[in-house]
């Protein structure tokens, strides 16, 4: 099972580190990362494998959201299927 993590907000040091540390803490494997910086805005999209995660996905998603709130970023972790359903026939 795969999920997509998106991080959007003002660029700062350590965003990627913070999110990927959280993934590794819970045995979630990062498959792919793309990131871009447009002016000052940072947008990162991370594809992760949650099959072997040691906590329920909803809990992980809450955790990331909290980290986002603390850093003033908008972080969402969503099941991959939602994007597949919407954008592929």
């Amino acid at each position: 099972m795969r999920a997509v993590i998106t991080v959007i907000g003002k660029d700062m040091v350590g965003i990627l580190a913070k999110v990927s540390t959280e993934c590794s803490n819970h045995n979630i494997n990062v498959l792919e990362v793309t990131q871009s910086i447009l002016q000052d805005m940072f947008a990162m999209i991370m594809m992760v494998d949650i099959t072997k995660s040691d906590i329920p996905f909803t809990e992980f998603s809450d955790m990331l959201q909290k980290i986002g709130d603390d850093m003033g970023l908008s972080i969402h972790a969503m099941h991959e299927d939602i994007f597949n359903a919407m954008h592929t026939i």
Partner: protein
Amino acid sequence: MLNARDILETITMIQDEHLDVRTITMGISLLDCCHSDIDVMCRKVYDKITRYAKDLVATGEQIEKEFGIPIINKRISVTPAAMILASCENKDAVKLAKTLEKAAVACGVNFLGGFSALVQKGFGPGDRELIEAIPEALSVTDHICSSVNIGSTKAGINMDAVGLMGKVVRKSAELTADRDCIGPAKLVVFCNAPEDNPFMAGAFHGAGEPDCVINVGVSGPGVVRAALAKAGGCDLTAVADLIKKTAFKITRMGQLVASEASRRLGVPFGIVDLSLAPTPAIGDSVAYILEEMGLECCGCHGTTAALALLNDAVKKGGVMASSHVGGLSGAFIPVTEDAGMIHAARCGALSLNKLEAMTAVCSVGLDMINIPGDTPAEVISAIIADEAAIGMVNSKTTAVRVIPAIGKKVGEELSFGGLLGSGPVMPLSTYSPAKFINRGGRIPAPMQSLKN
């Protein structure tokens, strides 16, 4: 493989454009709860609803979190209560309403629909008792929604029921006058009511439905409007294409949520209702879509044409995105639930006559309209009759949900809070249709050929 642009588009739709699943509605048949003793029946009703729907809210919340899609409402629809009330010797409909309320609260759902009767051709056992109990039932409960089907293309219009419903709507408002007349906001009078509608207040679980079923209603007027805004000054062919593409995406999301909910709850998937359902939130308005198409204000000349285009394009886009489509499926135009409609009604651009014309080309009918508090019951009945005639002749669902604002006049406001919103009292014609309404009887079903 997913690309970054698609991912960010989905996130923007959810975060900035109010994309959501409006409701997961579990339909539950109560036909096997019939009993001649009302107390035994109520116990069976409570047990069945709470057994079937005990995990509905938790499952909805879980899907919401995992997929990152807000699911605004979790609801229940049940067999039209008049059908099961028919089996009781003591047809105490208010007792049944209180039982349904207790079950709704126990399950934690937002609304429970199905305090309903289907009387398009005449009153069966239990129908009259239920209809007469509607005002009290709506005033003593918070979560119960009621609907009455008074006409259909096949049966014609039951004008005795229309006459009765005018009084019921008025009395519902009078009994809840201390709460901004909330009663009739939970009461819909239908012509051609769909049996699988997940939206309130008109949801009920039709007699042809399975024992239990999951129906999902999508939303997303904000997404359609944002897509049109980005498109700029293209022609109407391009506008229709763009709406179709957007509706496709919205509906795919609804289909995903519906199949997930159905799988997790172990309940068959029924339908996805392809509706653009507005909320009072700024940016989540159907009226703003029409204005984005080029109308200065919703309600001006051209509104009916713009709405016809929108309604048709939503269906065309959505139909391929879902395996089963049903319910009301189209654009809703409730006045108090739509920021753009509220504005248009306040500034006088939107009249009841225009709204009536709009209902001929869109999904429902005269919805959430505040009318003067001194409106006689016959006038309410006549509004219902007009609207039912449009539905009957055009083979479509139409409905009336008007709220007599007791003690208030044109221009004053009612505020219901939440998704029901608020809005001004709109003027009506003051000439009397009383003699016509008091004739009673039935308007015969219309010709289905010689269409002109």
